[in-house]
């Protein structure tokens, strides 16, 4: 276990979790990602690797304002996606094909790369690691897993599209553009695994050929059930 003095990681000594030093909380604040901590704890406790839902602090986390707020918003979403695909690959659904496993692992690796990219860019402005809540997902069922993946990817695409006009820095806008296209590739792939021909259907592409766009408020509402902590986007830019 490593000390947590790297940027973006909470200082151990100041964490309220130390008032309740459960093994999982200790691992979390010792520098393990939230999901790895839960996975390890779950291994010992339940003999499986499924994350334990609903066991985080539930506290409110302010995303911040300006470009930093938008970056934290994106960081939060990438954390969620990375955690989800990590969980899927740790305990794949029944009869997963080698083909599906290979490409889901690729997606997982992209999301982890995105997550770590935002962590690095944000530095000391980064929000803490979030605790995912995947209790609504049946990880042994292909349809449940892929439908959740589709929701995350579609939501992610709409989030980046909606955030575009809120970003001030041209450099960050360029980077967001390079990420949203990857998320859309993920979404197209997942959609095809669920239903041939749905890769770019009218549920996400408008009559003008434009992909969906959502405001941060809309997205935060959609992802709230999957995150134990409450994300506070009240200081994000709105125009």
């Amino acid at each position, binding site marked *: 276990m490593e000390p947590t003095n790297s940027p973006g990681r909470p200082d151990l000594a100041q964490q309220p979790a130390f008032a309740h030093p459960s093994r999982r909380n200790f691992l979390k604040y010792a520098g393990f990602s939230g999901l790895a901590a839960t996975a390890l704890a779950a291994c010992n406790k339940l003999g499986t690797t499924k994350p334990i839902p609903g066991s985080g602090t539930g506290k409110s986390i302010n995303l911040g304002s300006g470009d930093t707020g938008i970056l934290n918003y994106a960081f939060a979403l990438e954390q969620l996606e990375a955690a989800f695909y990590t969980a899927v690959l740790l305990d794949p659904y029944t009869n997963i094909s080698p*083909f599906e496993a290979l490409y889901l692992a690729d997606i997982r690796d992209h999301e982890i790369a995105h997550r770590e990219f935002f962590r690095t860019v944000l530095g000391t402005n980064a929000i803490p690691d979030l605790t995912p809540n995947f209790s609504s997902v049946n990880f042994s069922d292909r349809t449940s897993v892929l439908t959740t993946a589709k929701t995350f990817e579609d939501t992610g695409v709409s989030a*980046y*599209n*909606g*955030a*575009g*006009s809120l*970003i*001030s*820095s*041209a450099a960050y*806008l*360029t980077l*967001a*553009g*390079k990420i*949203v*296209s990857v998320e859309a590739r993920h979404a*197209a*792939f997942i959609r*095809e695994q669920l239903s*041939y*021909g749905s*890769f*770019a*259907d009218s549920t996400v*592409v*408008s*009559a*003008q*050929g*434009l*992909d969906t*766009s*959502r*405001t941060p408020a809309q997205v935060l509402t959609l992802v709230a059930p999957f995150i134990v902590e409450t994300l506070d986007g009240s200081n994000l830019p709105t*125009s």
Partner: protein
Amino acid sequence: MNLLDVINEIETQDPAGMDKPGSRRDIFKQLTGAAGKIALTALPLGLSGIFQKAEAAGPSTSTTLGILNYALTLEYLEAGFYKMGLSAQGLIPTTREYDAILTIGTHEKEHVAFLQSTIKALGGTPVSEPKFDYTWQSPRPLKIPVCGLIKDRQVHSPGAELISPQL
């Protein structure tokens, strides 16, 4: 069309304009007002980033319109390509592949229409569709893997050779 290229092109043409925090927002207001029907949230990420405003008065429309017409040209290229493929008898072997390419081709046509109307809404003139030469491609130009994943639609890199000289 690779919107990243569009954004990069804007930065190359007008680097100063891209960093003005207020400028993009002013353009959004102008767009939604003038066009009436282009909702802010309907703009995809790339397009939302390409508008910038000159220091003093109005928007740097010549640069903006130039870049939008560049994007429109790429959309003409793609739309024409898929139209050609879809109408070629016996070229696309399965219904599933045909339907997928029809979806893509339809979107490209919609992009052409959208960019044309956006350019007009900004007071510009959309470029006409160029004469394209698609003869470089192999007999099966659209390589679709067995799994049905859609190939990267990046424009063939020396794209200028596909565009007729009168552009």
